[in-house]
């Protein structure tokens, strides 16, 4: 969706580095993106591609050291989240921007009741009284489809199943009516039938509450079903970005193309042999000076190891990719990905 509204979140040139004993690891390298009101942005990438670190950096959730936000601006609500004081940031975290973590088993505190954990953001951010917070907690649990909400407030996390715990996490993230919800692999730890429940729930909540959502996942199927726009990350960079139909119908970056082909289908024709991306993603000990995908890319040519391609607009509006192949405009469309 090209420039229809002012972005609610605008990230420019974000760089995050981890200082380790083995040297610096450049986890996020100049990431730019924005998020518009009511939009669902899907972020795809393999582990280590920097998708979680990018989102954690936005809210400065990474412990420093070893993490260091080296550069960039994160404009939200007229202020730069990377510059504001810790006190001001606290007002944003969990209230204007909600966060759902991957593992519902470890992100709830086992020694507090669900009721207490739900009431915490309500009392801290909205200044509700105990009774008000309790009332609102019951509403929230009902909203996310937990039966018998009033009684379950007294329960501890271990008394809930994985899917139910994820629902509680969503309820907590929604507690203060956030404008932005960041969901970091929210269904990865869940079974498919439970995943289907959670996805239906999020779709429903989006219609009801209209917040913007950033959904991080490695599952292209999930993204295809819910996202408006998709951002593909590789080695700490955005390699392709565009409307969901464009990305799936006409992927332009060789990595996106390969990624879409390695996943076998559950329906439709079945391939005899799986397409493979040879090699492994690199560990970024230096800021990239060349294309990070060149060693696994079968179309790589000289220029790929000399410069780092920047995201550039392609024919379709809002569709951008970082690949030198696009400059070679007349290159015949490559068919097979596996060389």
């Amino acid at each position, binding site marked *: 969706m090209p420039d229809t509204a002012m972005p609610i979140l605008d990230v420019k040139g974000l760089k995050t580095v981890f200082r380790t004993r083995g040297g610096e690891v450049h986890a996020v390298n100049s990431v730019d993106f924005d998020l518009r009101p009511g939009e669902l942005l899907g972020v795809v990438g393999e582990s280590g591609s920097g998708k979680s670190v990018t989102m954690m950096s936005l809210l400065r959730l990474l412990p420093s050291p070893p993490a260091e936000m080296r550069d960039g601006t994160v404009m939200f609500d007229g202020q730069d989240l990377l510059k504001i004081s810790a006190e001001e940031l606290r007002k944003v975290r969990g209230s204007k921007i909600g966060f759902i973590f991957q593992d519902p088993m470890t992100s709830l505190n086992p020694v507090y009741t669900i009721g207490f954990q739900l009431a915490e953001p309500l009392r801290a951010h909205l200044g509700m009284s105990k009774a008000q917070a309790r009332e609102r907690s019951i509403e929230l649990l009902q909203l996310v489809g937990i039966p018998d909400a009033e009684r379950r407030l007294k329960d501890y996390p271990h008394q809930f199943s994985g899917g139910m715990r994820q629902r509680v996490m969503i309820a907590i993230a929604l507690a203060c009516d956030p404008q932005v919800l960041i969901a970091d692999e929210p269904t990865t730890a869940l*079974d498919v039938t439970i995943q289907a*429940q959670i*996805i239906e729930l999020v779709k429903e909540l989006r219609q009801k509450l209209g917040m913007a959502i950033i959904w991080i996942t490695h599952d292209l199927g999930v993204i295809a079903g819910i996202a408006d726009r998709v951002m593909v990350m590789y080695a700490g960079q955005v390699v392709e970005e565009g409307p969901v139909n464009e990305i799936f119908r006409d992927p332009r970056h060789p990595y996106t193309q390969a990624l879409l082909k390695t996943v076998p*289908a*559950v329906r439709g024709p079945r391939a005899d042999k799986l397409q493979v*991306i040879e090699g492994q993603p690199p560990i970024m000990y230096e800021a990239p000076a060349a294309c990070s995908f060149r060693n696994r890319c079968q179309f790589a040519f000289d220029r790929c190891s000399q410069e780092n391609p920047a995201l550039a607009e392609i024919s379709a509006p809002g569709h951008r990719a970082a690949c030198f192949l696009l400059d070679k405009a007349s290159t015949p469309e490559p068919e097979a990905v596996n060389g």
Partner: protein
Amino acid sequence: MAEAESADPLVKVRDLKMYFPIHAGLFRTHVGDIKAVDGISFDIMPGETLGLVGESGCGKSTVGRSILRLYDVTAGTVEINGSEIAHVDRDSLRSKRPMMQMIFQDPQASLNPRMTVASIIGEPLDEHMKLSPDERLARIYELMDWVGLNRTFAKRYPHEFSGGQRQRIGIARALALNPKFIVCDEPIAALDVSIQAQVVNLLEELQDRLNLTYLFISHDLSMVRHIADRVAVMYLGRIVEVADRETLFAEPLHPYTQALLSAVPEPDPESERNRKPIVLQGDVPSPANPPKGCNFSTRCPKVMDICRQIEPDVQDFGGGRQVACHLYSESMKTTAEPTAGEINKQKSTRRQP
């Protein structure tokens, strides 16, 4: 029994039960059982891959482990390559270990961090074979070649490898003793999407080259559809449906299989928009206290009165297809024994060299 026109099954499992006792109270009295596997039967033909799918906690890994006697099974029989496994004594079991091996889910946890690759792959050789040091090393190199590991890595430790490479070490170890049957317990679940395909292709290549038989346990339905010849679907300790791959994915009969397949999202925005998943209500009941009647009756969208009373029998639909559901009770009720007639025919048409 099977129509047995060609070969006999390599693996025969009959009415396998694996209960884990629950002890409670001051005297740790036996108060109940977790019925992780509650009476399942199936066959696997030589050279075949049987996919075993189901959600977490349905008992699919327990099936894999019980078959290899990593647990002492509660009841039932397991026959692999003509020898009884489930109730033999330790010594004769040990002599049968080489023919049945396992590839584990987490390559990080299943490799000893203090052993080099060569010693990990060589350990089964030391245990079960008498080889000279030269022969041993030659065998280790051969195995490393098979799984696509560079020979120069033999002296390295597991932490120096990526997840996909570690899984290759685990596969080499499983192959060391020339097994006939390998249980692959979620071998790709811990790997990245782009690495999964590499490992699955390797498993298929090795199967062709060494004529291996796999039990491929996974929750990833799309990968199972890719690798398996036949698929068994488990729910709460029981197999609800078995069929050959094409039939199962094209036309699932059991309501649970239908829901499971419909819940898998597809990487295609167009079809995703029109996909209407059957969203199951609620969660899987506890295997310590399974519901009366059909195990799926608490979540089944097509539940009938009889489902809450009587456990459905396994019904044979011919061609190796079996379904345990009351919806199909009237139609052709034959035997409850698994059949595996057509699999071999199908097998020969698949994967031309």
